């Protein structure tokens, strides 16, 4: 209670409220820009938050995360170009509605269902995270090893070209995490004689490169495409009839999004797709889906925002990121010297309550801004990409440099951008690599500690019920996409 009051008092500070407002508005703006996602924005912003107080820094990133997920829907509805991947499903019906002259209704429903989804998930976060953290107290290194394997195996089912490629990407990220000195033995690994690499490759420049550097190159290939510009008259609140029509869809999507968000590695994109499919599946009249059914906007929007708060549950309680953006927030916690996991709840409860409050505030604020300022935010599509993307690249360079004030980090960022572009062309997504990179240290350390505890008898992993449960879940989640392919083939025959 004291911690809650302390966090509440901290939020009386206009500075902290200002930080959350900036994060929220910034989130909606970057979320609305096609190509610029809240994941990229948090990655770009992270190095500059290191000089801030941890509460302000994490509140800023959390607000940006919540608002960015909503912001993507603005351009998805207005110009059929989702500002961020979680908004892709919103475009299926949002854009047809806009073409029918109902952009205001679609935007209003997107804002309201996003706020409901977001608030629902923050309540789940407030209730579930401490409970999960209490369970995590019983976790030893073998349990953490099995849990991190489960987190990595979930990469198989996140959106992307291929489940196997996602798993390869995750393992590649773990391999990158081994670069530098092995802290148990003091032996350098993959440093090729460069002493600068002994401390390892910091994940921030890699992350910025994989998201921002790579996107800069992708945009270079799209220069001849005409820039789509948004136009709408006014945003209006959905009527009571619209709400009645969508209430069931929104509540169902809140549950779906929260469940998907709780799973390690899954995030808003998967939640939105399932939210859309379920909205369609439960509808009595499916004929208007894809042509402009308002439930096709409410379903994915409630689901992707419900996933935001839920994805913070494993991130804060276990130190296992729930999505790509929460992986970056996890990195921010680590960079601030904080230890995500159950100890966070006993050592820094004020910070946790501040995160909860920041997310609550952000959800309310983006709802208001979404309704009042969608027309304004839609104007980001007017920024010429010839100026926008070079600016983003310069910011990416500064972000990579500012961390250690080292040009080597800028080279790493550019290298990661070039590599990310090549990998993307061959079907490897950036998010699994980042997940692997962040979880790599945990995987290696927990495995080593487990082997020492078990005196190198691998079968003793099976003596522990939690480990066995996670290992079974790991197998199921890694093989599930193959089962899906097999079922689809069988259905086709």
């Amino acid at each position, binding site marked *: 209670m004291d911690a809650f009051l302390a966090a509440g008092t901290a939020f009386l500070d206009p500075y902290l409220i200002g930080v959350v407002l900036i994060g929220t508005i910034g989130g909606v703006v970057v979320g609305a820009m096609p190509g610029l996602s809240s994941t990229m924005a948090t990655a770009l912003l992270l190095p500059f938050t290191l000089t801030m107080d941890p509460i302000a820094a994490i509140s800023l990133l959390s607000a940006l995360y919540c608002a960015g997920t909503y912001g993507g829907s603005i351009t998805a509805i207005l110009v059929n170009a989702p500002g961020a991947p979680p908004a892709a499903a919103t475009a299926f019906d949002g854009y047809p509605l806009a073409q029918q002259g109902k952009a205001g209704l679609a935007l209003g429903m997107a804002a309201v269902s996003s706020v409901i989804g977001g608030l629902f998930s923050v309540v789940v976060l407030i209730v579930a995270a401490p409970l999960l953290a209490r369970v995590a107290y019983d976790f030893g290194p073998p349990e953490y090893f099995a849990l991190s394997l489960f987190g990595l195996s979930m990469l198989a089912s996140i959106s992307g070209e291929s489940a*196997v490629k996602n798993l390869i990407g995750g393992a590649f990220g773990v*391999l990158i995490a081994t670069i530098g000195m092995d802290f*148990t033995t003091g032996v350098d690994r*993959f440093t090729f004689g460069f002493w600068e690499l002994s401390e390892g490759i910091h994940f921030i420049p890699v992350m910025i490169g994989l998201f921002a550097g790579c996107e800069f190159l992708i945009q270079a290939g799209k220069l001849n495409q005409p820039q789509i510009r948004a136009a709408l008259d006014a945003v209006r609140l959905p009527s009571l009839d619209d709400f009645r029509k969508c209430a069931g869809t929104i509540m169902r999507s809140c549950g779906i999004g929260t469940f998907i968000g709780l799973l390690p590695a899954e995030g808003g994109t998967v939640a939105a797709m399932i939210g859309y499919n379920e909205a369609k599946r439960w509808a009595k009249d499916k004929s208007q889906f894809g042509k402009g059914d308002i439930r096709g906007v409410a379903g994915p929007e409630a689901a992707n925002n419900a996933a935001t708060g839920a994805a913070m549950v494993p991130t804060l309680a276990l130190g296992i990121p729930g999505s790509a953006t929460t992986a970056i927030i996890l990195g921010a916690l680590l960079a601030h010297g904080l230890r995500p996991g159950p100890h966070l709840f006993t050592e820094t409860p004020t910070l946790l309550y501040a995160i909860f409050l920041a997310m609550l505030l952000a959800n309310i604020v983006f709802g208001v801004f979404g309704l009042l300022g969608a027309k304004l935010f839609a104007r980001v599509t007017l920024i010429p990409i010839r100026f926008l993307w070079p600016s983003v*690249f*310069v910011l990416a360079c500064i972000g990579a440099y500012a961390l250690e004030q080292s040009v080597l980090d800028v080279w790493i960022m550019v290298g990661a951008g070039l590599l990310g572009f090549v990998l993307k062309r061959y079907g490897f997504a950036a998010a699994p690599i980042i997940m692997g990179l962040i979880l790599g240290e945990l995987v290696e350390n927990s495995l*080593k500690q487990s082997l020492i505890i078990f005196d*190198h008898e691998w079968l003793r992993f099976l003596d522990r019920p939690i480990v066995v449960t996670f290992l079974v879940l790991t197998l199921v989640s890694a093989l599930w996409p193959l089962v899906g392919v097999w079922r689809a083939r069988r259905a086709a025959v």
Partner: protein
Amino acid sequence: MSIHPGEGRAAQAARLPRDLVVALAVLTFCAAAYAVTLGFKEAPSAVAQNVQPATFPRLVIGVIATLSALLAALSFRSDSARKRPVKPMVAVTAAMMIAFVIAFDTLGFIAAMVLFSLAMPMLWGERRWSRLLPFAALFPAAIYLVFVLGLGVHFDPGLLGVN
């Protein structure tokens, strides 16, 4: 898989699945990475506690190689779609990214930023000086204000001594 005009069926059939080529490239990478681990120093067993520095990386390399073999096997059943060729502007932009970091390290950040802010939009087709010049002046100025004066990020002055 896209079929290009004029391309014969025989040529199509002879073409290796795209994912098979990817899997072979990843396997080659694994072989090279494994070879590098052979050069890792051995730690005394009392320090290493039976987990040598190369053990974990080799385990991960093994996992990647196994997954790549699976990818190769699956590629004959379902291959990934071929992408359009990379446009020359992408290569030019990549070169500009590298040139920017070189300029950052040698000329100094401010000078590099001014040059980049002018050159990059021009390369991408912007020809209106009324837009280019203000951007090349105002964007670096804003960056300087926010990051150098506001956040205290220190940039080396470089050869031109601008800081």
